């Protein structure tokens, strides 16, 4: 007869675990991965594999030789970071830049803070911005879409829709010409446009988002507040600062255009909703999402960079501890107060 266990309540536990959560997120990223291979060919596969493998390798090396502790590469978090890092870069990026990115993501963005759950900033975002600033040319030279191209040749490059707009304005092109150069809405929705390898296909990202929502891994608060704020805030800017807008006629294209370009969907669904770096309460998540939306639009309209999502997420990640401190859940029996 075995000895009976003695421990405190509760004596049962849910079947869910953080490992299951991580691997479900990996599955939710698969539609975008497949879409990237469809549109960008072999280059996308190469970049993603290098990214994931280097992230795993670097985490394993750090845990074995620097920390000299147990390895946790099987919990799936390094794979997620690898995938998200790959999705944030163009598919023709040289392999050594990706490895540097993985080093920054895992080494600085995650392990330097103490490992899983202890980082303040989203590791993939940290790496992406690091690469953007350190290798601006390689990070802003996107390949042209070539469907199901497995030749491995990424010779032809082309700009993203946002870059088309910014360039067009700089060159003083008339509105009609700029609009003609942009891909139409359906193309942008499916992913038939230039951009980093994971951010182009809206439909694949939305499918991934639905998987996450149905599994209750993310809640609707952050994506809806980010996207809603972007739409509303661009309207706001149009009404009150019409001269900053590209042109009055272009504003009619803007809500959809802003939502489908510049990595907004990837950021709103996968990067900003990262559990470790986002607020814990629903109220906090809404505030977080609204601020990300505002900062993104500000950078897009008045900033130098064509896309502002990653900077917005990085800035708000820094505010998450403060949001957690300010917006506490309403205690049972207490009236609603905001902690001063």
């Amino acid at each position, binding site marked *: *007869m*075995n000895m*009976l*266990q*003695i*421990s*405190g*309540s*509760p*004596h*049962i*536990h*849910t079947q*869910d*675990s*953080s490992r*299951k*959560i991580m691997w479900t997120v990996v599955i939710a990223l698969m539609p975008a991965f497949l879409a990237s291979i469809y549109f960008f060919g072999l280059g996308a596969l190469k970049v993603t594999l290098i990214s994931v493998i280097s992230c795993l390798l670097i985490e394993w090396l750090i845990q074995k030789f620097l920390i000299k502790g147990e390895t*946790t590469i099987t*919990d799936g978090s390094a794979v997620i970071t690898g995938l998200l890092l790959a999705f944030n870069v163009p598919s023709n990026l040289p392999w050594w830049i990706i490895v540097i990115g993985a080093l920054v993501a895992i080494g600085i963005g995650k392990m330097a803070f103490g*490992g*899983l*759950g*202890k980082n303040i900033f989203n590791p993939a975002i940290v790496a992406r911005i690091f690469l953007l600033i350190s290798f601006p040319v390689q990070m802003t030279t996107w390949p042209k879409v070539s469907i199901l191209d497995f030749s491995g040749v990424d010779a032809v490059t082309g700009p993203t829709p946002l870059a088309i707009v910014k360039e067009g304005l700089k060159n003083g092109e008339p509105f009609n010409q700029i609009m003609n150069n942009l891909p139409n809405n359906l193309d942008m929705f499916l992913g038939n446009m230039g951009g980093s390898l994971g951010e182009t296909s809206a439909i694949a990202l939305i499918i991934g988002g639905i998987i996450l929502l149905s599994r209750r891994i993310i809640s609707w608060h952050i994506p809806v507040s980010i996207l809603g*704020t972007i739409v*509303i*805030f661009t*309207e*706001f800017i149009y*009404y*009150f600062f019409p001269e900053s807008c590209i042109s009055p006629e272009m504003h009619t294209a803007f809500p959809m255009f802003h939502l489908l370009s510049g990595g907004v969907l990837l950021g709103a669904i996968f990067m900003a909703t990262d*559990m*470790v*770096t986002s*607020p*814990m*309460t629903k109220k906090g998540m*809404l*505030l977080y999402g*609204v601020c990300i939306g505002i900062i993104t639009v500000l950078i897009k309209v008045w900033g130098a960079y064509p896309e502002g999502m990653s900077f917005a997420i990085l800035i708000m990640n820094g505010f998450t501890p403060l949001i957690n401190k300010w917006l*506490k*859940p*309403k*205690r*049972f*029996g*207490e009236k609603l107060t905001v902690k001063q």
Partner: protein
Amino acid sequence: MLFFILYKNFFFLKEINFFLYICKSKNEYQLKHRHVKTFSKGGIHPEENKFAHKSTLEDFPNPKQVVLYASQHLGAPATIIVAKGENVKVGQMIAKGESFVSANLHASCSGVVSKIETVSDFAGFKKQAIFIDVEDDIWEESIDRSPDIISDIKMESTEIINKIKECGIVGLGGACFPTHVKLMIPDGKKAQYCIINAAECEPYISVDNRIMIERGEELIIGACILRKALHLNDVYIGIEQNKSEAIANMTTIAKKYNGVHIVTLKTKYPQGAEKQLIKAIANREVPAGKLPIDVGCVVDNACTALAVYEAVQKNKPLISNYMTYSGKSVTPKNYRVRLGTPISNIIEANGGLAENTGKLVSGGPMMGKTIINLNAFTAKGFSSLLQITTAEAKRLQPSNCIRCGRCVNVCPMGLEPYLLSVLSKQGRFEECESEQIMSCIECGSCQFTCPSARPLLDYMRLGKNKTGAMIRARISQN
């Protein structure tokens, strides 16, 4: 939310405002007018495992020796008034509660008092106990043992409370608070709601369900007695949706009695927690540090209501309790067992411990206590004996907090377990106090839900213990 309103965008302002108002008030409206009531904050849905729902109540055979602890209730232990060698009958008072918060104890079997000794109860605490060698089953003559249902309540409020005190009735939901003390409303407070807790939200346990099906009318009369003691005209009996047969039976019987309201509750843990039950039925929230009577509510368990019926109408003191014997590898049973029966008798009568038993638990799997000592005896409030399998009871290796926020979402008291457990671990008890750790009802929802298997409730209990000691030290200094 404020940001939306700050936008000076006239096309959206009115719609957004209206939308927010609808969302917030829709929740409140639904809570008030819905047919099925629930509490709004937190809660989890563990596997119900109500295997014993269909097992009819059985009388467990009297043991050869009963051992009755002098302290089977909250408050001061009762003073033993019998001596070694004395003959006792069933229902004879053998220990008297002397202080204000205390309860009487009565012999559960007839026989001879063989010794009075200190023993360990099932949780390992030392208690004084009376050993009775059982002979026959002779009852006190004043107890009415007939099965007739007496619905006429002749006693007045003060007499009812005295009878409940005399018969040693305590809260049989598990806390064992002396019922007569709960019914004596302090000056300045008024009882407005009399609520009977028949939610039975913990998995496995089915005794409230069976007594509602088999002894429903007596339970309702007991509820009427309790409301009369409180000078009220209405009593609310809250029953969770997974007990459809009980709800149907009780609703039919309740039609014969005025002012007995059967309230259907959504099946959600911890619906049976006092504060959550009051929120669901009366839509009032008990503030932190206060008692239910501060919002005008008195809550009693369903088994307590039945015991009150037997005490007031049949002059029968508390000498037995209803319990469920269940588990994944066990034939489920519902027993009426005399107080002081050895737990090992019950286990052996059901074929001993199953091969895959990991833990024995008294109470539910969420809040029950682990049984440390198999040489223990049933007592008041011992509502179930569960065999938890090794697979269910296994404590996984905790990993880093991934800050998913699920513990915050499920906490019914609106606390932040991830934060409180870290503060407790680091010994920061002043901050624990300001983060309201003392409001924790120890329901275990946080630890159940944590995907990283972190021992949140263990740290919360540590924190509550130390913070409580700190608060008491501060009060005694002033």
